[in-house]
C-alpha cells in the first residue's frame, strides 16, 4: 500500500498539480467566535436561542409585512380578486427568502466545519466493518473487468485484495 489516501492522487492532478491539503482538519473561522452559553438544538441543528428568537421575529415581520403591503397594492390594480391574492402570495414567499438572507447575514452558522481527508485508520475500520457484514468482503478476482478497472483507478483494488487475504489468513 503505497498510497494510503486513494482519492488524493486524482484530486491533486485535477487541481493542476497543487499539493493536496496536508492538514487533516481545517477549522472554519466562525467556530471559535461562537458564544456557547445560549446554544440549543432545534430541528436538527444547533442555534443560539437569542438569534433564533430574532430570526423568528424577523422572518414573520418581513414576510408578513411584504404580503400585507402587496395585498393592498395588488387589490388596487388587479381586478380579479383570486389573482391579486395569488400575486400577493408570490411576493410573500419571495419575502421569506429575503428574510432568510437577512438572517444569514446577521447570524453566522453555529457549526464547526471540518474539511477532512481520508485517513488510513478510518479506511481500515470500513474494511473491517464490510468483512463482518453478511456477504463479507467477497473476492476482487470475481469482479467484472470494468469494476476492477474502476477500483484500480481509485487505488482501492489492492486495498481490498490485501484485506481479503488477511481475512482468509485469520480464518
Amino acid at each position, binding site marked *: 500500500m503505497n498510497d494510503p489516501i*486513494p*482519492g*488524493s492522487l*486524482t*484530486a491533486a492532478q*485535477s487541481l493542476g498539480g497543487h499539493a*493536496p*491539503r496536508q492538514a487533516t482538519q481545517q477549522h*472554519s473561522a466562525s467556530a471559535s467566535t*461562537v458564544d*456557547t452559553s445560549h*446554544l*440549543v*438544538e*432545534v430541528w436538527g441543528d*444547533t*442555534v443560539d*436561542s437569542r438569534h*433564533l428568537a430574532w*430570526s*423568528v421575529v*424577523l*422572518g*414573520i415581520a418581513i414576510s408578513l409585512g411584504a404580503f400585507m403591503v402587496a395585498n393592498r397594492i395588488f387589490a388596487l390594480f388587479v381586478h380579479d380578486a383570486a*389573482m391579486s*391574492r*395569488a400575486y400577493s*402570495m*408570490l411576493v410573500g*414567499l419571495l*419575502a*421569506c427568502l429575503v428574510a*432568510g438572507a*437577512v*438572517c*444569514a447575514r446577521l*447570524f*453566522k*452558522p453555529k*457549526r*464547526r*466545519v*471540518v*474539511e*477532512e481527508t*481520508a485517513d488510513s485508520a478510518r*479506511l481500515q475500520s*470500513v474494511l473491517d466493518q*464490510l468483512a463482518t457484514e*453478511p456477504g463479507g468482503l*467477497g*473476492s476482487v478476482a*470475481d*469482479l*467484472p473487468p470494468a*469494476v476492477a478497472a474502476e477500483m484500480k*483507478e*481509485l487505488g*482501492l483494488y489492492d486495498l*481490498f485484495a490485501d484485506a481479503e487475504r488477511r481475512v482468509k489468513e485469520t480464518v
Partner: protein
Amino acid sequence: MMDHLLTQAIAALSMGLIGAIVFSGVGLISGTDETTTIAPLTLLVALLGVPPAGVFTFFMAGAVAKHMTHAIPTALLGIPGDTLAVPLMPQAIMLRNLGVPHIALRKMVSGALIAAFVAVPLAVLFAVLLAPFGSMISKAAPWVFLAAAIAIAYFSSGRWSSVLLLIPFVLLIIGLQSVTGKYGVKLSVSYFLGIAIGPLIADLFSILSPTYRVGMRRDQVKTCSVAPDVKGWSGYFPNPLRVLDKQQRNWTVATAAISSATFVFSPVAMTVVMGELVGSRIHQAYHRLTTVIAARNGVTEATYIAEALIPLIAFGLPLSPVAAGPAAPLFNAPPRFFVDSATGQINNLHTLMNGWEFLVYGLLSVLLAALIAYPLTMNYAHRAASFVARKVSHESIIATFAGLIVVIGVWEGQLLGLAVIVTVGLFGGLLSRGFGFNSGVQFMGYYAAVLSVPAITKIFT
C-alpha cells in the same frame, strides 16, 4: 388545437426549467422537506393560472432535480438530504470513509437519473392499466382512504399506536374544520403545511418551556465535516451512462421497474427492501456498496414518481403518501383544482391532461431536471456543500420557514389559518416525535377526516 398545444408546450418547457433551477438550489439545504417547499410553490403556480402542463412539469422537474441535488449533503456532509435519503446513509458514509465520496455522489445521481427515465413510462402504463377501476375506486373513495390510512399507519414506525392515534388526530382535524367553518373559512393547504412543518413547530414550543429547554441545551456547536473535493474525470461532467457498470445499470432498471408498480407503500420502506435484495446478489464488498447506493437512490426516485403519477393519472384522487403530501396541489388547489367529496366530482390535472400528455411532459420534466441538476451536482457539489455549511445558518432557514408558515396561513384563512397551522403542527410534531406517527400517516389522516368521516357518519345516522 395547434395553439392550445403550443401554449401547453411553452408553459411546460418554461415552468419545468424554473422548477428544476429553484429546486436544485433547495435540494442543497439538507432537511428541507418536499411538502414544505414543493407543495406551496406548486400551489402558487397552479393559482397563478399556469396551463396544466406547466403546473405538472414544474412539480415533476422540481421533485426530480431536488432528489439529485440532495445527494450532495448526503454524500459530502454525511447528513441525509431529506427523509428519503436516510436509507442511503450507511453506504454513503462507508464510501466517504474509503476516500471516494465523489463515487457515492456519481453513483447516486446516475442511478436516480436512469430510474427516473424508467419510472415515468412505467408509472403511466400502470396508471392506464388501473384506470378502468377508477370510477369504482372514486365511488369507494371514503373507504379506500380509510383502509389506506390504517395500512400506512400500521407500516409507520408507530405500528398499532399510529393506527389508534388516527382517531384523536382525525377528531382534531374535524374539530378545527367545524370551528373555522363557523367563520366561513375553509382551509386545506394550512393543514398540509402544519403537518409537514410540525417538527419545527413542536421544537419552537419546546424551547419556550423551561422543562424541555434543559434537554435541548448544547455546550458546543455541531461538527460538520465536509468530505474532500475529488474530481475523477476529465471534461465538464462524466457521461451518466458510463458511471454505472452493466450490472449496476441492470439492477437499477430492474428495481426501479418493480418500485414503479407500487404506489401505496412508503418510498423509504421500498428503498430499504430493494437495497437488501440487490446487496444479497453482489459478492464483492466495494461493488456491493456502489451497486446498492445506485439502486437505492434509483428506487427512491422511481417510487416517488410512481406515487405521484399513478394516483393522479388513474384516479385523480391523492391515494398515496406522496400524492397526499408534496403532490397535493396537483389534486387540490381550490378554487382551480378540487375533488368534491360530496358529489364525487373531480376537476384537476387528472381531468385536464391525458395519458400521452402525462408521458411526454413527464419525460420532459426528467430531462430538464437532468440538464440543470446533473452538471451542477458533478461540478459544484463540493463548493455548494461547503458554502451551505459555512454561510447558511440554521437560524436563517428557520426564519424562512417561520415566514412561510405565516404567509400561507394568513393567505388562506387570516389569523384562523395561522392558528390551524400552528395547532396541527404542534400536535402532529409531538405525535411524530413521541410515537412515530409520521407525516405520511398524518396526511392520510387528513383525507380520512375529509372523505371517510362523512361516509361513516352517514351509516350511523
